[in-house]
Each structure stands twice: as C-alpha cells, then as structure tokens.
C-alpha cells in the first residue's frame, strides 16, 4: 500500500499540514504536496477510470505526462474538469472528485466495457451500429456519448479572470531544470536579454532528485546558487509555474502561467497567457520516461520508475511497500536504490537486457537487491491493485518463471526527449539507435524567414541523457543563441561527475513473443485504452500510416496527447509492418504542450470587454432617453426612441411622420469619414469610384459608388471636395474601416507612387442630420456664419464656418427626400450641438429618429442601402444607378468586370418597387417564383425582395426588390410565396414611392 514515510520529502513542509476533500472524504497532506502525492500519502492509489473500458486506474507518473489521475477540481463557478492530480498543487480546502464512473470510483457500471473488451477492439464502432439506420442517432450514439467524455462539463460561468502579456526578448528558455538554468546563464552572461520559464513551482528539474554532484556541490545546492545568480542579473527574467505551450513561426511563443490555481484566495487573474516574440528560443524541456508494455501494466500500482523515486524523494511518499523494478536501461536502478535507502523492500530488479554490468548494477547488488537479467514481466495480477508479478524470460512467450508478491511495479522503458516545442514550428527529428528514442536533429531546426535557426535544444531535450553531457550541451546552446544575436559568449560548462551508462535495449513488448491474450492486456495508451493488440490490428487492416493508426486506435489522442504512449505505439506499429521505427515516423506535434484553459486564451476580452463598444459623442444622450439600440458593426445605433408606454413600431412610425411633416434629428456620426489628400487624390478617387470625382468643384458634394474588382457594388456615400487637393469621402457606417483598409491596400500595393494620403477621421466628427420641411427654420434659430438659404447653400453643396458658435461643416444632402442638412462638428462639440438643435427644434416638435425610420424614409424614396439591395452579387447597373457611372473614364475598379457577359445579360435581376395588392407588407427576403424547376429539381425563381417596410407616410406596405427584367415589366404581378407555399402577390412598380420629382428636398 502507498503511504507517507516517516521522514524525507524535500518539497513538503511537514510542519504545515493541509486538509482537502477527495470524493467528499477529508484527507490530509502537507504544504508542498501535489494532489497526487497527498493521495498516495493517504493510500489512495485509485485515482480515476479509463476512457473506453472504465478500468480502474492509479497514478502512473509524477508530472505533466500523467494520463490517469485526472480529477474534477473545485465546484460551481470554479469547477474544472480533467485536472491532472500530479501537477495540481495542494492547498487548504481543495476539493477534488474523480471522473468517468457511475455510481462510484470503486464500483463503476461502465466497467462492463472492460469485460466486453474482446468485442470492442480498435475501431469497433466503424464496423457496427450500422442497422437500423435511425438507431445511430437515437440509440447507439447517445449511449456512446454518455459513456465517453471524461469529466463533467462545468455548469456555471467562470468566476476567475485571465490576462495576457505581450513581451519581446532576445532569448526565451523553456524549462528550468539544470539545462535551462545553464543555458539561461550562458546567454545571460553574454549579455542577451533572457526570459526563463519553468512549468512547475520548482527550479532544478529532476537533478535534485537523483543527479550527481555539479561543480562539487550537491545538485540542490548548485541549483539554489545558480537561481540566485540569475535572479541578480538585470537582463534575466524568471517565471515558474509557467509552461511553454507552443512555438509558432517568426519566433512567436505561447506561455501559460498559473498564478492562483495553487492559492485560490490570491487576488488578481487566475492565469496569464504570455505571447512572446523571441529572437532565439531554447527548449530545455527534459525527457519523459516511457512505460513498458506487459500484460497488466495498467493495474494501479504499476508506475514509472522515475515517478516512484520522485514521490519518495520529493514528497516522502512511498507508492508501495514491496516494489518490483522492471527496466531495459540503467536509470531505473536508481529507483531501486532510492527505495532501498528509504527502507522499502525491493524483491527484484528485472532487467530485460542480457547483461547488466554497470556501476549502478554493482551498487544495487551491493545494496542487497536481487538483480535478474534477461527477464521481464509475464503479467501483473491483482484485484484493483498490484498483488503478484509473474516473471518470465524476456526472450520467451511468457512462460512463468517465478511469481513475486509485490504491491508496486516501477517500470522504465527508457527516456524520450520532449521534442514538442521543437516540432511545433517545423523542427525535424532523428532516431537515436543507442538510446532508442527520437531526438531533435540540429541540422533540421526550425528556421525563420531568412533561413536562420530560431529554436535550439538544451540538455536532455537534445538527447544528452547524462548530467555531464546535458550541462555541456546546455552551455553550448545558450552560447550559440547569444552568438546568433551578435553577443560574445564564452566560458566553460558546469562540471558534473561522470555517470556510467549502458545502452538502452529496445524493448517494446514484454516478453518478446507475448501471445495475443497478453498483447490484448498490454496497454500503450492508458487513458484511451489502446493496447498492443489494437495497434497490431490497425496494421493488419491496412491503417499503416502512423496517422491512420493513431486515428483508428485513438492512440495518443487523449488529454496527455500520447506523452507516454506515442513512441511505444509506433514501435509496435513498426514491428507489425516489419519496418524500422524511423521509417514509420511520428505523428505531428501540435500546441499546446499541455492543455491551456480556453478562458486564458480568451483573456480579459469577456463580457463588457468582449469587443469595444464604439460610441458616438451623443451616445450618452441616447441611453438616457430610452433609445432601443441595435448593433451595427462595433457601434450601437439607436433603432428608435420609444417614449414611455410606446411600442418600438409606434415610435418608428411617429419618428417618420414627424420628420416628414416637421423636422427630425439623426445622429449620423457613425458614418465613415475618410480624408483623401494629395496631388494625386483626384486621380485616385476616379479609380475607386464609378463616378468622376476629380472634376468635383470645391464646395460641392457628389454621391459616389465603389465597386470591388469583380464589379460588385461594395459601398456608397457622399464625397465632398474640401480644397484643391483634399476630398472628404463618406462611407457606410459598417464600411468605414474596410474601405479605409482597401484604399491603403491599393495605395501601398498598386499605386505606391501616387502622392495620396488617407486618414480615417470617422471619430473626429459628430455628424447630425437635421431633416424635414422645418429643418432650415431650426438652423436659422441659431446664429450662423454662412448663408443657409435655398440659393445660398443649394442641394449638394456644403459650407464651413460657425453654427451656434460651434465650428461646423454643413452638407446639404438628403437620404430621406426631405429638406435636409447634415452638420459635422468636432466630436467634442457633438453633444452640445445636438442639445442646441433639440432646443432650437422644440417649437417645431423636433424628434430624434433612429435607424429604422432612416431605413423607411430612404425606402420610400427608392434609395438603395448597401447590404440590403446589395449582397456581393449586385452591380450598380442592376440598381438603376447607371447615372452614377462615368462614361468618360478609361477605368475604375470593377469596370472591366462589369463588361463580362453575365454582367451585361439582359435577364439580370434589376431594382424595382413592389406593392402587394392588398397593401400588406411583403416578407423581407421572399423570392418570386417562376414557372418550372431547375435541372436540380429546385423551383425556378425570378426575383427577390431586398427591403420591405410598412410606410407610415403612405399607410401601406412598400418594398424594393430585384426582379428579372424588372424595369421592363412595370405593372406586372408576380408571386412571392410564403414559407408554407401560399401565394403572396405583388405588383411591379417604380421604386420611388414618395415625392418622385424630388420637390421636397429642393426647397
């Protein structure tokens, strides 16, 4: 049984006990424990259930690679599913519950799947559940979904918040073990700016657990000294609890820092996402031990050898009382020695190699441990926990040699460098025969745009498995990174005592010739329940590519992303296919290294901060006066201003009527305003607009259309010429940014030698429309420095000066068909001007109006609206706007496109007005049907409704639409069926329903 030792545990503080709840039971650990170590200390080896077979599972590892010990943490607003117990730092009051079982961890109905496992091999679901068809959705799939999944989904909104850091650095070092420290020191001493991060709470990695002396110091002391030295260097920044999540092109790296997960009462964000641009990235990410594949290797109590000694040395916890060590390399001997030193029993070391002659072997024998070479495990037996280890010859089919009673198995299948970050940005790997692992190939490193190497590896992450080699490698890498930045680096590496090391035997299955029933119990992927037999089945069925095998068996697709299983799995695949391991290759490593909360990726941009709300200078007045808003891009625009007790529809009708009969006030500040200036500005605008803008006279306005290269109408607005070299282009509210962007793109890529500057001054001005027959009287009520009379400021003219003491530009333009002035004032005068107009308009019953009244009034006049009458398939010629297309120009954007055969097809759908026969409102978006069907059996259509409103002015429905040859078919009645197919007839009429001669706007 697992238990707390009476002494030891370099990371725990026995003076400070901590209590926590596990499945509702109160347990105790110590400050410095992880949840996993504390559970082991309480003899809680069983920590979860596997994904597919719901098999009972204990903790296997001691770090980020853990596949089994996943728990739900916290509750309600701080509940987090699938948290790894091995990396969860214990705190007072922590609440954890196990997952994926019903009704309880100890007794799980779902474990019936394990009984049925022979019927559920890899890919079984592709071969069954085929009949009857409807059963998949209604019976099989819901059952599969319910038994899959892992943790419960959170139900509540996250109580925490997250933040982002954006930083640049010369050198980013990921990993704070001895290699990372050494590389950071080498680069830092050379003068590079260094950011050093470590995913755990502790510096030094695994060296303090079992490393040899460094520079004649115990590794722990050496680490402390180097950390202090680095902390004293002004050019070095260090963060622990900060995981290197991903490396992207151009030296971009993503780090995930845990701030208060271990201290939930701490103020501030829960986690922080670092977005780093580093000139050089060093991955000092260490190596991960591989499991061995033998029957029963998933029983609770079977653990990685390194994890067993981590628990003893770091936490003073023993996973078992009698531990059998099984290995194909030297390193696991250290575990045996550690166990022995802690006073625990080690009945045997089973070394699958034929010879074991190294120094460690001698130490083990000297410590009185029985070392048996050439042997492996035939099977591990036990009821929910290791009880008996059956030993066999490795080179056999598993015939029993002897049985050893034990409650723990410490296994080591060799070490694999952590190559994830190296691989994310395209670094390639090479197979190392002696150590039986893939390691980064320095000749095929990730490279930047100009061919320079920007990711390097240090220490065991490079494949340097002894402390001595790792330090030399890390020093060299740190110096190389600094030198790549032009810094001078020199100085020897820290010295470590040499360690003897023999080759790792490539043992991928134990025993070598294990029969099917053993291979079907030899787990590769513990979480996803992928066994040796599953990978073999994939190969047998032709899923030969490593990607096929992965996807067919789900090997490596669990929450640990195959940190323990990938290499073992592809070794089994290689053997099944009869090819060498490097010829099988690896699957693609993708970010993040370990999972990152979605909330952390999202950052502060949630709720009110999700996207900025753009506000006009008059926004506060709208809010205070009950505006009913609608989102328009990032703006919120008043849709209408209902008075108390008034419905939105009634408000809209009132606003239209008041404006048409007297005067209305519109906040048009969201309208895009782009200043286009320069000696070539006129020529530039002639290319952008279909109209001629270069000939526009100073003091005049012109309505302009802009098309895409493909000829489609994308934006419209009034252009005013300010002076010889300056034009002010109004765009739609939604189009301001994109049109500005498009102008810049053309200027920067196509007409880079034209002398034109563009500035987006949308937010520099408030723009207010004073609209209606009384508009001039309202303006006359305030003092003006210019003449606003019919002839003083004629339609489509503009003047600049002072209005009511406020600097203003007055444009005499109309989108309503009424006498109308749009007045632009500096943004900070916007609200004062609005108030002034309200007061001046008071005697006339002036009303503010919103976007819906605006839309209705423009539709009554037959004015098009971008996004209603256009949808990316409509050209100006479809909308009867030929008058706004200059015939004199050689070219404009879209001109050539508009000459294509389909664009000039006489059968194109063209703009018309539509009225129902009974005065009702046609549904927006309805299609007009035509005789017959298309070749694909769809109803033929001949038009559609683009805008449709109830007109308060006319007291009936009005609509605009695009109809095949529409303008030639005035008076014809067409059918726009309702969704249920019932007919809705409408007559084709002129789109100008109100004041067709334009008399109202010209008074």
């Amino acid at each position, binding site marked *: 049984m697992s238990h707390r030792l009476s002494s030891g545990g370099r990371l725990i503080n026995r003076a400070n006990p901590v209590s926590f709840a596990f499945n509702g039971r109160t347990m105790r650990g110590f400050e410095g424990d992880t949840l996993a170590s504390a559970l082991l200390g309480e003899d809680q080896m069983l920590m979860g259930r596997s994904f597919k077979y719901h098999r009972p599972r204990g903790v296997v590892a001691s770090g980020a690679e853990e596949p089994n010990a996943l728990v739900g943490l916290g509750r309600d607003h701080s509940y987090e599913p699938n948290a790894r117990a091995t990396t969860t730092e214990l705190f007072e009051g922590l609440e954890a519950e196990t997952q994926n079982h019903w009704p309880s961890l100890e007794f799980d109905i779902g474990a019936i799947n394990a009984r049925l496992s022979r019927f559920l091999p890899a890919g079984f679901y592709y071969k*069954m559940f085929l009949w009857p068809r409807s059963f998949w959705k209604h019976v099989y799939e819901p059952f599969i979904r319910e038994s*899959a999944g892992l943790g419960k989904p959170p139900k509540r909104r996250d109580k925490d918040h997250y933040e982002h850091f954006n930083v640049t650095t010369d050198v980013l070092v990921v990993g704070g073990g001895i290699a990372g420290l050494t590389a950071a020191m080498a680069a830092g001493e050379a003068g590079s700016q260094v950011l050093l991060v470590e995913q755990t709470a502790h510096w030094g990695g695994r060296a303090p657990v079992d490393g040899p002396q460094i520079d004649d110091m115990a590794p722990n002391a050496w680490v402390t000294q180097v950390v202090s030295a680095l902390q004293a260097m002004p050019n070095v920044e260090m963060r622990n609890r900060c995981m290197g999540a991903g490396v992207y092109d151009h030296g971009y790296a993503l780090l995930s820092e845990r701030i208060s997960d271990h201290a939930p009462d701490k103020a501030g964000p829960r986690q922080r996402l670092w977005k780093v641009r580093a000139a050089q990235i060093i991955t000092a990410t260490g190596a991960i031990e591989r499991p061995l594949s033998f029957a029963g290797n998933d029983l609770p109590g079977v653990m990685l050898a390194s994890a067993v000694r981590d628990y003893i040395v770091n936490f003073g916890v023993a996973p078992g009382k009698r531990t059998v060590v099984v290995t194909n390399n030297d390193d696991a001997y250290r575990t045996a020695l550690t166990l022995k030193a802690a006073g625990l029993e080690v009945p045997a070391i089973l070394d699958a190699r034929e010879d074991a002659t190294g120094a460690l072997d001698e130490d083990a024998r000297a410590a009185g441990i029985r070392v048996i070479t050439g042997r492996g495990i035939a099977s591990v037996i036990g009821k929910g926990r290791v009880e008996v280890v059956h030993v066999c010859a490795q080179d056999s089919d598993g015939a029993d040699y002897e049985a050893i009673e034990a409650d723990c198995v410490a296994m080591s299948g060799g070490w694999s460098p952590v190559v994830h970050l190296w691989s994310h940005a395209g670094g390639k790997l090479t197979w190392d025969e002696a150590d039986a692992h893939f390691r980064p190939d320095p000749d095929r490193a990730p490279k930047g745009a100009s061919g320079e190497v920007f990711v390097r590896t240090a220490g065991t992450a490079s494949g340097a498995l002894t402390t001595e080699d790792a330090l030399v490698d890390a020093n060299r890498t740190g110096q190389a990174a600094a030198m790549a930045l032009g810094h001078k680096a020199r100085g020897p590496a820290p010295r470590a005592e040499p360690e003897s090391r023999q080759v790792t035997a490539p043992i991928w299955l134990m025993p070598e010739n294990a029969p099917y029933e053993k291979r079907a119990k030899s787990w590769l992927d513990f979480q996803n329940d992928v066994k040796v037999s599953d990978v073999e089945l994939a190969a047998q069925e032709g899923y030969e*590519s490593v990607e096929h095998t992965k996807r067919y068996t789900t090997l490596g697709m669990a929450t640990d992303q195959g940190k323990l299983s990938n290499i073992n799995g592809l070794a089994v695949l290689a053997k099944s296919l009869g090819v060498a391991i490097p010829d099988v290759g690896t699957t693609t490593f993708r*970010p993040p290294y370990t999972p990152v909360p979605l909330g952390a990726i999202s950052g502060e941009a949630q709720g009110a901060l999700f996207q900025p709300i753009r506000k006009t200078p008059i926004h506060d007045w709208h809010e205070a006066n009950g505006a009913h808003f609608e989102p328009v891009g990032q703006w919120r625009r008043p849709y209408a201003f209902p008075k108390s007790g008034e419905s939105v529809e009634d408000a809209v009708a009132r606003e239209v009527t008041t404006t048409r009969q007297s005067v209305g006030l519109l906040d048009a500040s969201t309208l895009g305003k782009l200043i286009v200036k320069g000696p070539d500005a006129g020529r530039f605008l002639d290319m952008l607009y279909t109209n001629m803008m270069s000939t526009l006279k100073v003091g005049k306005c012109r309505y302009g259309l802009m098309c895409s290269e493909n000829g489609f109408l994308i934006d419209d607005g009034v252009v005013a010429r300010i002076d010889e070299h300056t034009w002010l282009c109004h765009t739609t509210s939604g189009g301001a940014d994109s049109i500005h962007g498009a102008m810049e793109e053309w200027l920067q890529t196509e007409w880079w030698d034209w002398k034109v500057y563009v500035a987006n001054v949308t937010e520099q001005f408030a723009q207010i429309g004073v609209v209606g027959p009384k508009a001039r009287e309202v303006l006359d009520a305030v003092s003006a420095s210019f003449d606003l009379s019919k002839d003083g400021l004629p339609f489509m003219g503009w003047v600049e000066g002072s209005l009511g003491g406020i600097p203003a530009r007055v444009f005499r333009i109309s989108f309503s068909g009424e006498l109308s002035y749009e007045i632009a004032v500096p943004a900070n005068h916007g609200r004062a001007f609005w108030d002034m107009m309200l007061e001046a308009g008071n005697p006339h019953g002036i009303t503010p109006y919103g976007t819906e009244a605006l839309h209705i009034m423009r539709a009554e006049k037959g004015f098009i609206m971008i996004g209603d009458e256009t949808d990316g398939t409509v050209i100006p010629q479809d909308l009867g706007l030929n008058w706004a297309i200059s015939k004199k120009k050689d070219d404009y954007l879209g001109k050539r496109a508009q000459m294509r055969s389909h664009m000039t097809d006489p059968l194109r759908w063209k703009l018309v007005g539509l009225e129902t026969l009974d005065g009702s409102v046609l549904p927006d978006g309805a299609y007009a049907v035509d005789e017959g069907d298309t070749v694909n059996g769809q109803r033929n259509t001949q038009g559609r409704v683009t805008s449709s409103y109830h007109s308060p002015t006319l007291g009936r429905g009005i609509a605009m639409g695009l109809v095949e040859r529409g303008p030639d078919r005035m008076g014809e009645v067409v059918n726009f069926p309702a969704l249920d197919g019932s007919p809705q007839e409408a007559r084709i009429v002129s789109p100008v329903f109100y004041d067709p001669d334009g008399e109202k706007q010209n008074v």
Partner: protein
Amino acid sequence: MGRYSVFAIAREAFRDHSGWTRAWGNPAPKKRYDAIIIGAGGHGLATAYYLGKNHGLKNVAILEKGWLGGGNTGRNTTIIRSNYLQDPSAAIYEKARGLYEDLSQELNYNVMFSPRGVLMLAQTEHEIRGYKRTAYANALQGVSTEFVGPKRVKELCPIMEIRGPRYPVLGALWQPRGGTARHDAVAWGYARKCSEMGMDVIQQCEVTGVRTERGKVVGVSTTKGDIECAKLGIVVAGHSGHVADMAGFRLPIDSVALQALVSEPVKPCMDVVVMANTVHGYMSQSDKGEMVIGGGTDGFNNYTQRGSFHHIEETVRALCETFPMISRLKMLRQWGGIVDITGDRSPILSKTPVEGVFINCGWGTGGFKAIPGSGWGFAELMAKGESPLTAEFGLDRFREGRFIDESVAAGVAH
C-alpha cells in the same frame, strides 16, 4: 474483404480478431487506367467510388502523395449542412447531405453521420434578414430549414448565453437534419469500397508531372513511375495550384491556412452544432466529448498547415462569450489545414483547357460537408462530360462574371 457487422465482430472476438483483412489494398500502380484521380481525400475517393458505382468505370487509380484522408478531410470540424443561399450551392450540398443520411449503410462503414441539427446564430438585424432570406430560398430549393427565435435557440442549446451582453442572440437559422460525421471514416469508408470494386488506392505516390499530347492528357509522372490514363481528375484542395501548373493552366485560387482546435473531452453538454458568424466562431461536441471549435482563415497565403495564433484567440474569445461555461475547459490541440479559396468562395468542378483533365477544387473552408455530392457530380462530369450538379461551377464562370457568391450566407469559415 469481409462485411462489417455486429456478427462479424462477434465472430472475430472469438478468434482474437485474426480474421480481419485489409480495409484497402496496397497495390503497385498498373501501366494504364481509364481514369486517374489525383488526391485520395474525401472528394477524390468519393469521385472514384461514384465513377465505379454510377458509371461502371472501375479501372481507376486514386493517387495520394501522403496518406489517404490526410489533408483537409482529416482536419476539418466535420460540420454537415446544406442551408445555402444560391441554387447551385444548395443543390450540391443538399445532394451531399442526403447521401450522408445513408452513407454508413451504403459503404458498410459507420461514418457516424449524426443529424443533430445546425444552428446559425443571428446576432444583428442584418443577420436576421439574411437568414430569413436563406429560409425563403431553402424552401424553394427543397432544403428543410427554419428561422427560429431566441427562446427556441436556448432550448436547443442550453449552454448558450443568449442575452449577450455584447451581441444578444436574436434568432437562428435552424437546419434540423444538418449535423456532423466522423471525418476519417468518410475517407476510409470510400477507400475501402473503391478497393473492393477493384480500384487501386495508391498512397505515398506523388504526382510530379501531367503528360499531354496535342492538348490531351495521356498520363501522369509519379514518384512510383509513369502511369497512363484516358481521363484525369485533379482533386487536391490546397495544392490545386501546383498540380494545375503541371497540367499547364492556372486557377483563380488562394491557398490559406484555416485552423481548428479541440478541448479536452467532457460528458455530453451540447447536442447541436452552433455557428456564430458575427463573433466568428463555431462549435460542436464530438462523440468523444471534445468541444470541436473552428474560426476564420489567415489573411495571407501559405502552405504550412499551421497558422497564426491570434485567430485561435479571436475564435476562443467569441465562443467563451457565447458559451461561458467553456472558460475552464482546456484547449487540448490546435491544428491547421490549407484551404483553397476562389473569388466567389464557391468550388470549381470543371473541365479544363487540357482535354481529359478535370478539376474539383476551391471548396475553401467548407468542403467536408460536400464530399458525397461533390463525388457524385464530379464523377458524372468526368464520365459524361456534364452534370447538372456541377454545371454552374465551371471555370468559365470567372470569365463570364457568373459568380455564385455565398458571402451573405457564410461570412465565416465553416
């Protein structure tokens, strides 16, 4: 090749699954085929399958430079829907959706088509109008959709926050028979059937040249030697430009990275597929329990199958806003694929300037849902020289300006 069934599983269970045979063969190329398809993704394999099944053309090879199904077929977010606006799009996507309904039985391979329903959220007045219009169009196209209000949206997807605050959900276009399928299984199922019909699926065989004589295709050069053919179908998505270049013509296509990600798996909490175009993101929950998430494309052309992280950030932000409970779920894996995007964001299924060479590309961000329909139509085009499903998707439309623009209906990658 044996039939798959629960009985076959039971039989094999008692002989250690030793009787399962290869799902598809591993043949060496023959000297000559009646038709060669370049690209063993979903579209290429479906094309081959329907060439055999519908047109009796079985002397066919499908050449794949990597592993079959390894391109966008194996990288997408598996959404299936047909609620398109324009008639030609609705026709081919609905054909595909209809074929998906029976595909598991037809292929004797469970592709796990799950018509769990697709919600496309309207979060602006403009979107409401757009989706109502789509519903009208769909009604005449024989596509079953409905515009539903926010209350119904909440019932269909309780984990959604419909009250905003930034962009409250105002309604949605609901396609109840849209859904998802297992993407790999679609490629594998077609590959298995093609193999069963005697076709050669040849992996690790990169085409290095297209050989023509007097303007007509006669074969291809590959890393496994020269192969002759009478007809050639190019179905290579992001790499269409390269292969077209080998055949001597150019394509109006941009290749850009599209990214996706999955969360760690959790128990079922979301039954429907939700797409939110205003905030740019979409999400569904896989049968394994992962939240499958996608967003927009990169703004620059490239072939890396990676992408810029800020797109992931934008997408995740949108989805945390729409589904606040996902904030403490964790991103497990992110990846990218290279999608081929045309000027009107609609595909190209067309004859080409080279006689005997046909191209099927330009599916952009939404090709997975179209696989069966695309294969059906493209096979007909290759076999007969024309197909009603593909008639409007010819290359000549760019010269004529006859665009099929779906930007109204799909403002975001999908």
